[in-house]
């Protein structure tokens, strides 16, 4: 593999692969987005198109799922999010929409990865407000509905002005979550609980086993946001304690991922990680020098009925555990990303290295190697999986 001359006139801020890894887009302080393509993994990247996309530094960009065609969004210091569509698979991009709701720079954007939930775009900017846009009619990409606006950390706007701004957002890649079969039975204890877990749930008097199987998989729409030092999961609710069913854009803050002692630079979400995963993994890159991996194990949410009986609300909740943390970068960590199956995590930082981590059979996270920006490092066994350090 050889380095790729992007043709940017300034530093690159972010890059994005399309869903299949066949297109690669870069954005830069030179206000341009440049797109590269390759026919197969064996081919080198070749330049495809360049677009003058914004009037100031472009900070982030993201491709939409392929069901919506070749659709690219970018955000910038110019306070806007712009949507570009290509009708010829990336050879040319036309701007189809500009979203200008942010009063400050927009730092990070991400399209929902699971296309089944529609064309949705989450953004976060200096005002620390996460915004969720929805193109209800994907055939008319000029129309974007601002569906959710929620401040993630009050006071962070001031902080962001005083300190460095640090915001990120990442969607849960899966559209469903697999629940451990036992979770149906792990309901909170209730003095009046009966043997039938679903007595008041409206599900009916089904035998418990069948019910448990039926609820082993749940539709879920969620994303994780980091604003300065705070990391929080937003999830669409299906149940409203007042009205019963929730609205289409009823997203709310759920779990918080604790322990970050400084600015969180990046977040990445892996769904139902392989090897029998019944959990989600969220990795964070933090200025305190740590890469953290949080394990989120789902369970059913219960609410008390009129009679005091606990019944499942249809919502899920997560038990959050810090599964691993590493300070091997010996400095600030800037980016984390997962492989497709959520089994390999990459982290990169101020030591000029991209480090790679994998969970072994016992679920312990181990380093499997590192790539350095510095010349002269030769692995003892390049291409050898035996270089795992234990």
């Amino acid at each position, binding site marked *: 593999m050889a380095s790729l001359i992007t043709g940017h006139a300034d530093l690159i801020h972010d890059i994005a692969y399309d869903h299949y*890894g066949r297109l*690669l887009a870069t954005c830069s302080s030179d206000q341009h987005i440049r797109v590269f393509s390759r026919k197969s993994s064996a081919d080198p990247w070749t330049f495809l198109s360049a677009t003058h996309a914004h009037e100031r530094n472009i900070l982030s960009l993201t491709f939409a799922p392929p069901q919506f065609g070749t659709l690219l969004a970018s955000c910038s210091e110019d306070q806007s999010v712009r949507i570009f569509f290509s009708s010829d698979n990336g050879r040319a991009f036309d701007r189809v929409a500009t979203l200008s709701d942010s009063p400050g720079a927009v730092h990070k954007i991400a399209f929902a990865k699971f296309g089944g939930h529609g064309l949705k775009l989450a953004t976060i900017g200096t005002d620390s407000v996460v915004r969720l846009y929805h193109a209800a009619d994907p055939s008319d990409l000029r129309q974007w509905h601002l569906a959710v606006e929620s401040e993630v950390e009050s006071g962070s706007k001031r902080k962001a002005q005083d300190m460095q701004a640090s915001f990120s957002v990442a969607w849960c890649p899966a559209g469903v979550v697999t629940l451990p079969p036992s979770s149906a039975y792990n309901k909170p204890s209730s003095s009046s609980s009966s043997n039938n877990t679903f007595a008041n749930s409206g599900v009916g008097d089904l035998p418990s086993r069948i019910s448990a199987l039926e609820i082993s998989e749940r539709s879920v729409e969620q994303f994780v946001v980091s604003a300065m030092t705070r990391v929080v999961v937003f999830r669409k609710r299906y149940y409203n304690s007042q009205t019963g069913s929730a609205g289409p854009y009823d997203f709310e803050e759920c779990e918080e991922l604790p322990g970050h002692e400084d600015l969180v630079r990046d977040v990445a979400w892996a769904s139902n990680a392989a090897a029998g995963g019944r959990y989600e993994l969220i990795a964070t890159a933090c200025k305190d020098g740590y890469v953290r991996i949080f394990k989120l194990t789902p369970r059913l949410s219960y609410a008390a009925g009129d009679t005091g009986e606990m019944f499942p609300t249809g919502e899920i909740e997560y038990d959050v555990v810090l599964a691993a943390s590493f300070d091997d970068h*010996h400095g600030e960590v800037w980016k984390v990303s997962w492989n497709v*199956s959520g089994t390999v995590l990459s*982290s990169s930082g101020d030591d000029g290295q991209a480090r790679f981590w994998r969970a072994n059979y016992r679920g312990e996270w181990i380093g499997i190697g590192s790539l350095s*920006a510095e010349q002269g*490092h030769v692995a003892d066994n390049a291409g050898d999986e035996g270089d795992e350090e234990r």
Partner: protein
Amino acid sequence: MSSQPTFNFGVGANSGGFMSNNSSSSAFSFGGSKQPMFGASSASASGFMASTSHQKMDEDEQSDQEEEEEEEEEDEEDDDDDYDYDYDDFGVTSLPDAPVARGMLPEFSKRDRTLKFLMDPVLSEGAAWIARKHLKADKVDGPVLPEETKLYPALVPGTKRAPEYSSFIVESHNLFIQLQLAAQEAAASTQQPTIEDERILPRFANQFLQVVDAWRRRVPSALEPSLSDAYVLCHCLVATYFVDPSVTRAEAVMNWLNQSMPRPTTEETRDIMTSLRPVDQPGFWNLVHLTATRGLFLQCSNCLKQSAIIAPDQATLGVLQSAISVLESAPKGTQAFLAHRQWRARAITFGDDAARLADPGLRHGLTTLSRILRGDINTLFAFSETWQEATAALFLLHDPSPARLTEYFDLATKEFPIDSTLLVDEGCAALFANNIAKALVCAEGLDICVAAHMADFCDRQRMLDDFIDVETIERPSIRDYLFIRHAEVCFAMPELFVVGVAYLRDTDVKENVTLIRNIVTQIYPEDEEMVEHLLVVCDDVGLDTEKGEIVTAWSKLQLSRNEIGSALHWLSSVHNYVDTRAVVWTLVERSLLQGGACPLPDAILGEFLTSPGLCPDVIREFIAPYAIYYSYRQQLMQISSSCSEEDEEEEEGGRGSLKEAAMHLASLIQFAYLPRKYALALIAELLALLQLAPNFADERAGSGMLLPIADMSQIMTLFYKLEKDKREFSQSFEFLCDVLGEGRREFVESRRMQKNHSESFDWRVQFVAGDGLDVEEEGERKRVEKVAAKVCRVMRESLVKEISRAYLEQEQ
């Protein structure tokens, strides 16, 4: 790699400084440990003892290597001249074309730079780039250097992506399928699968071993060490647990040892045995004893035969002949176990005879040989260098009872330590200690494909049943875990996607459906065949949503290639009517924007349009708006071509009818579900057509009015309704501007090329021709908006005029 251009990040740093071997700066030990990694000093194909590349470098100058090896080493040395081997960089590899000179990372960081890396969404690779740490750097970070605007694509460490490796996986998988079929057949025919498995498994295990052996020789050298180590470990498993019935387990273990750690070397044997009197060579008896310890009885016998020993008397000759006879009659194969005691007794007898020989050298040599053959523990240990040799020798020569293997291993490892820095050593030791799970974990570190298949063999032989770990009890079995990991490797090679799914589906892990769900939509559908493959996988696993996603994504790809008919066909196949409808209206929109002739349809769409009977019902229903517009355009084209061929004979197919064209257009405008966005553009086009009618005072215009008055008044109502809805009118007006703008652009282009713009009817020409064609780019849209406003005004007037005229004509 050292030939890469050195890149200066440091202000004022000289070139010498870039390459300084500052071992203390930014040299981080990976994982916080400075211990060498497992498998780091991988054994070569010939055994465990190969040194690391660093050690090789040191030994290079001293040892007498083969010429070819020397050349390779020299090349390596040349390449690595610039490296500091004391640098603590275990597990660290430089990015391809790494941009920062050695030792210059601190300067890199001072310039407010950091490294970022993003993983590829499918493959086991990604791209790194240099980024600015802070958006508003409070210090000047200097000019941006060319290396700072590059991307650095790289494979994830440990990724194997040689085409040969891919073929190895395929061949292994084929064998796996054969094993499944054989096991099924055996189960069906005998009702006693375990008994049959005992016969079947060794056969397949040995076949798999042959596959690994063949491919480890073919894959590129970068992958070869770990695959070779995996082969050694797999061979050890086969020798200890899946012995071919034609040999004893002791023989199998000794064969494994002789193949993985051969001793004595061919060179040693040749040096001694090609001398005039081998027996006089200092290493002769050691050679005899070593070959006997290694179970190489024929080689040992030949050494004695060709030793040039001069027997001084008949007794000596008899002892020598006895020794040779014992060696040559060593029991083998199925008889070995039963005949062992008898053979050992013969060895003791010839040893007793040898002890009475007068020649001290001969006496010592032959009695030692006897002690080896009768399995004397101390003697065997004296001729062993590793626990593997000691264990194999005891097993073969002391008592080949399989039950005693672990006992021998324990004895051997008390004397010879296990090298726990080598995965292969540790894995083999675990096999001898009956710790199968640990051996499989070691195998995982060497080669996941080999490890997964080893686990499968063990699982089928019920060797993993007792492996229960409290910490992992909620996780999949180790066999399933390895299958999943192997499947992941397959998924990183798109051509092996189906193989990966097959492995996943052969596990007991229900959640693997989730993994398949995650992966299946990520595979790029190269062609329809691939789409079909993916859909079969979805059907098999019951992934309906993903099926829809795959087809929709494929349809979008087809649309970008202008394969519209195919896209419609696929969309309707998964009942995606939202997108089907959107595609049809996009076609209408594209035609309106293009003006003139409709874009040529692809073959499938053409068939849908021209042969509605062949068109599936759903598509026929959805495609109707475009089919109508297409028919209208076809009519116009025929009129246009018939005009240009006025004096020629009428073409086959007839002349178009203006009346029919108008009827088509009017029906589309009145279509209940017409997106209002297109209304103004369509009405404008219709009115332009009506104004054109007087020019055709023949049958092409038809007799009487072009449109019934009812249609005209409906269209007028529609127009007024549209005007009242500000939002809809605005959308429709915007689109009308787009249509006119496009028409204007085309007109300018055709005028520049001195071409006749409108070979077919294009209503826009009359409005855009000569109307501010030379305006500045910035004023273009405003100009078009003015034209569009004029079109709307004309539209109102024309509608009133046309309806009035229609009434008048009706009265007459």
